[in-house]
């Protein structure tokens, strides 16, 4: 059986844990100032059952062990519902239009100067083809005039 390692020094100095204690809607007095969790472990009621619950949720013990603990059935039912909801979220994918929206919002010239102009690819479209043909024709005319002189 694997137990959670909750005794490492950083557990007691986690800078990310500066937060307000979530308050239940039913037990909220409405006038008490926001309490901050102390940066240390505090005793909680029925901690044995909670510990077993965490071990089950971390995949370390079977559900039967949790159900055998005090209040275990209720906890298993609640977390099964939460897991079903999490499973729904886990199947979500990015809407396809978001890909296009991101590409359309990228700047065109961020990395254009990172390589010489003669190595860049030229997009082929009717305007580029017409411009190329006009340029070739003009060069041909100039060369022809030089030869005929």
């Amino acid at each position, binding site marked *: 059986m694997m137990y*959670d*390692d*909750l*005794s*490492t020094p*950083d*557990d007691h100095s*986690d800078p*990310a*844990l*500066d*937060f*307000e*204690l*979530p*308050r*239940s*809607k*039913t037990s909220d007095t409405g006038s008490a100032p926001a309490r901050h*969790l102390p940066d240390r472990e505090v005793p*909680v009621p029925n901690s044995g059952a*909670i510990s077993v*619950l*965490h071990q089950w*949720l*971390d995949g370390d013990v079977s559900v039967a062990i949790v159900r055998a603990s005090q209040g275990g059935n*209720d*906890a298993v*039912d*609640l*977390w099964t*519902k*939460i*897991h*079903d*909801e*999490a499973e*729904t*979220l*886990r199947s*979500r*994918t*990015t*809407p396809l239009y*978001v*890909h296009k*929206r*991101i*590409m359309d919002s*990228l*700047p*065109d010239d*961020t*990395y*254009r100067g*990172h*390589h010489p102009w003669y*190595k*860049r*690819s030229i997009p082929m479209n009717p305007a580029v083809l017409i411009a190329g043909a006009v340029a070739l024709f003009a060069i041909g005319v100039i060369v022809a005039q030089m030869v005929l002189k």
Partner: protein
Amino acid sequence: MTSETSPVDQADLDQEVIRRVLNGSRDAFELLIVRYSDPLYRHALGMTGSPDVAEDILQQSFIKAYAHLSEVRGRFDAWVFRIVANACKDWLKNIRRSHISYEEDDQPSSYSTPEEELDRNELRTDLEVALAALAPALREAFVMKHVEGRSYEEMAELLRTTVGALKMRVHRAREALQHLLEGKYA
């Protein structure tokens, strides 16, 4: 399935794409968007509860990643994840919300009966309200563990912290959620 790409191969492929983008191939960046948008979108959705906000965060994060692509050291997926994760935490710290915004969701329903859908919508709403009461760091740890299904080791690598600290955050998040939800659902 043997055709799956290993993380090392994936990192090499990412580096090749990054090299192409830095050489001026803007369109190559779409390969990175397609490859990583889904897990990043799910993280943003789990953190904010709003599809619209998740899409905006994803867009801004990829624009930022594109602008700073030459600064990538190591794995691109971990680097861009941290951009999204920080954007989500900034949003949570700045926003003051009174209720969730899943009603914006237009994904098709997968529930068999209207009653079941109603029950699940109620749970979804209550769960989102409970998640919104958590500190951003606790919500982040809970979403990564239970919504994204990541291991503690993977979470520690992505968030650059220790497994012990993350276990503590996940445990505190679970206890807070249980405290908030057990009266109604247990």
